[in-house]
């Protein structure tokens, strides 16, 4: 009998245990709608505008970072001081953040303020239209975000770009990062020391570029002079120098038509260059699988000398060479930016893109979240979030140079915006929606400055406008893009590696037109 009672108890306990985990979790953001505090009057009866109507309200703010940013972060204290709103951060690494984002959406349990991350515009537009996010174009909402409105709505030039991203019903859900791009952010970089050692003049066009690579190969026969990581992205960036501003979807500003960049004759010229480099072993055959760390290693060990990369790699590689494993300083090693090839122009980076940004959850705390959002766009907020507070976390010398006394630098080390993220929670990915030009991000290293100067000298090839897929075609648009990308990436790699010629090219152009031509008809309004 005792055994039976024991079995019964055990069974009940186990069933209870199973169901215990299935109960609905209390949502942290639940609660009544929080309204601004009523305006007050002073002793004389004058109306006192309440500067902090949401004082004491806690909002959740989700972002990704390589650092553990907690609620005590300096920036959050600044936000609290300015708005009275308490920030409860939700911080993950980027890979985990993207997974969590999927989870928040799948469970309809969003944080109050999120960075769109890998959420596609068509997705957040769809969820926004279903009530998940606040429509920033709502007149009542715009009244609550005057600093945001001043930038994107009141400025006619900005509005012309911003309005391209509106949905068919005129809504806009993402608050974009404004005017923070450097003029040149990616370009060809090369080992100046090796060029000088071999007496090679820096290239000025495609022919002299190839000639330089050949001389490097001659001097270092086992090397592969040209290299790149994330080949597809870097090929796409190089394509701007060949009059193609997008591989899948390129835009012709003269005809105002979308077209397939990968099937254009201009793009074929770039492919021919890569084919020659591959065939003559001027390009690393592992270029399709390299990552940035392997690129650095190859540049540091004379296996490669020219790369198409982010300009920040110059500081990484120059610093790595300066502190090699024997502790010796290699002063001669020097990576610098090179001129663009092809049409001689760099990529034009727009002031902003409305295809991503910060999303405000449509919920009881949305007004408080909007107040924080607007502060980030304000003169004061953007300065504090990107530069800091003088005397509090930075000091200025007589030349106006800003230093952060609390951050200890090693010998030869320069301050980076990542250090500010780690120390103060500033420059959080996705949250630097507006930045001050006083920020150290724009305090270029001499090599980065060279890249900006080269940009000003050579000019830029224009990017493409917002690409809006009509809602009627959004159901399986991703399937077509996926198949299209697969097809052209396979062809491009084979063209380079297998030395494809006219016959293969013509068939490819014809196949792409046959299989995916309808997508361009849709984008160009012909369907």
């Amino acid at each position, binding site marked *: 009998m005792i055994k039976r009672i024991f079995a019964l108890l055990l*069974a009940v306990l186990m069933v209870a245990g199973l169901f215990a985990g299935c109960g609905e979790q209390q949502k942290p953001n639940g609660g009544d709608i929080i309204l601004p505090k009523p305006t007050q009057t002073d002793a004389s009866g004058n109306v006192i505008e309440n500067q902090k109507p949401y004082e004491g309200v806690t909002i959740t703010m989700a972002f990704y970072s390589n650092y553990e940013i907690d609620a005590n972060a300096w920036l959050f204290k600044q936000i609290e001081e300015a708005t009275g709103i308490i920030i409860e951060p939700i911080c993950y690494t980027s890979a985990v953040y993207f997974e969590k984002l999927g989870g928040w959406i*799948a469970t309809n349990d969003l944080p109050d303020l999120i960075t769109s991350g890998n959420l596609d515009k068509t997705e957040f537009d769809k969820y926004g239209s279903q009530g998940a996010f606040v429509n920033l174009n709502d007149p009542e909402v715009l009244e609550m975000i005057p600093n945001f409105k001043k930038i994107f709505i009141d400025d006619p030039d900005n509005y012309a770009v911003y309005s391209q991203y509106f949905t068919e019903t005129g809504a806009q859900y993402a608050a974009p990062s404004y005017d923070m791009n450097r003029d040149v952010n990616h370009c060809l970089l090369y080992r100046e020391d090796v060029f000088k050692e071999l007496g090679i003049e820096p290239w000025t066009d495609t022919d002299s570029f190839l000639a330089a690579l050949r001389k490097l190969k001659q001097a270092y026969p086992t090397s592969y002079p040209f290299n790149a990581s994330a080949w597809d992205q870097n090929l796409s960036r190089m394509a701007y120098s060949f009059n193609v501003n997008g591989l899948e979807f390129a835009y012709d500003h003269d005809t105002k038509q979308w077209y397939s960049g990968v099937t254009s004759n201009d793009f074929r010229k770039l492919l021919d260059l890569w084919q020659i480099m591959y065939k003559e072993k001027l390009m690393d055959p592992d270029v399709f699988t390299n990552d940035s760390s392997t690129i650095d290693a190859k540049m540091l060990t004379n296996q490669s000398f020219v790369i198409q990369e982010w300009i920040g790699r110059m500081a990484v590689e120059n610093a790595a060479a300066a502190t090699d494993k024997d502790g010796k300083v290699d002063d001669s090693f020097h990576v610098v930016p090179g001129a663009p090839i092809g049409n001689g122009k760099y990529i034009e980076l727009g002031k902003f893109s409305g295809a991503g940004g910060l999303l405000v959850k449509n919920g009881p705390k949305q007004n408080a979240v909007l107040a924080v959002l607007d502060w980030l766009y304000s003169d004061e907020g953007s300065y504090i979030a990107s530069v800091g507070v003088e005397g509090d976390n930075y000091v200025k010398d007589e030349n106006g140079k800003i230093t952060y006394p609390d951050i200890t630098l090693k010998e030869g080390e320069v301050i980076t915006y990542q250090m500010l993220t780690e120390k103060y929670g500033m420059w959080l990915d996705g949250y630097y929606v507006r930045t001050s030009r006083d920020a150290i991000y724009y305090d270029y290293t001499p090599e980065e400055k060279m890249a900006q100067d080269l940009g000003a000298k050579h000019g830029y090839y224009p990017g493409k406008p917002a690409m809006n897929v009509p809602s009627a075609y959004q159901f399986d648009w991703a399937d077509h893009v996926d198949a299209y990308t697969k097809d052209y990436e396979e062809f491009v790699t084979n063209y380079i590696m297998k030395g494809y010629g006219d016959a293969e090219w013509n068939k490819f152009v014809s196949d792409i037109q046959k299989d995916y031509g309808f997508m361009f008809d849709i984008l160009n309004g012909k369907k």
Partner: protein
Amino acid sequence: MQTTKTQPAKRLPAHKKGKGFWTKLWSQRALFLMLIPGLAFYLVFRYGPMYGLNIAFKDYSPFLGVEASPWIGIKQFERLFANKDFWQMFWNTLRVGVLSLIIGFPAPIIFALILNEIRKPGVKKVYQTLSYLPHFLSVVIVCSIFLDLFSVGGVINKIVVALGGTAINFAMEPEWYDLIYQSSAIWATIGSGSIVYLAALSGVDQQLYEAAEIDGCSRLKMIWKITLPCILPTVVTMFLLQVGNVIRIAPDKTLLLYQPSTMNVADIIGTYVYRVGITMRSYSYAAAVGLFESVLAAVILFITNRIAKWKTGTSLW
């Protein structure tokens, strides 16, 4: 003469008289009570979520909820079959799955048989431990190791060049994809996969081997005539469990190994669902493809189970 007194039959309590379902249930109530947690688990975590399959027939949005999301019939399935690459991906999935079954399934059995033949326990343990170690490496590390090994500047190509050959870009050539995929899979799982067979081998009656030895049977023949038949039920059970996964291949490894030039042979349904269904959060589409895969896997498992029962007498049910 002694007479044997027969005991009068005990009268059963009223509730035990019949042989009905409820009577049996009551008489074995303790057992059924113990069954409840298991049943509850399956109901809550296995059968309950099947309700969610209806999103395969809806244009589901989490912000509308399952009920409010509009029904769209079989449009998600039409979308899948209309994809111009669907049959290529389906064939790739089958090919990778069948190859894993043909090459990957016997590998741990053969390895266990070899280990079983090693007479020195110390040596046997060293081999077993070394073979088990890759099991603790994540698939990302395993794939990175193999991509490095097979890269143009990797060890394999160094051997090829040393032998007078020309370096091959293995990772980028479609014809080498299966070699990299299957060899990395075998390397990572052969040790851990052999454990169950080593356990089965330890249960084989040693007297059978002694009798065979007296009869002059060779080691190879002993494996063929004694070892394999003795572990056959385990082999069949493991085979049937693996057959169910022929069409349901986890995408992680493929995502790490495929390259644009190998997509034609490497892209499987799982990676497609990951790209379009998961990363683009097209939940209804992912559910539709998952349902398609599950139904197909169930059919394959039923057929294989029937064949196994017919041929070997062993089956899952």
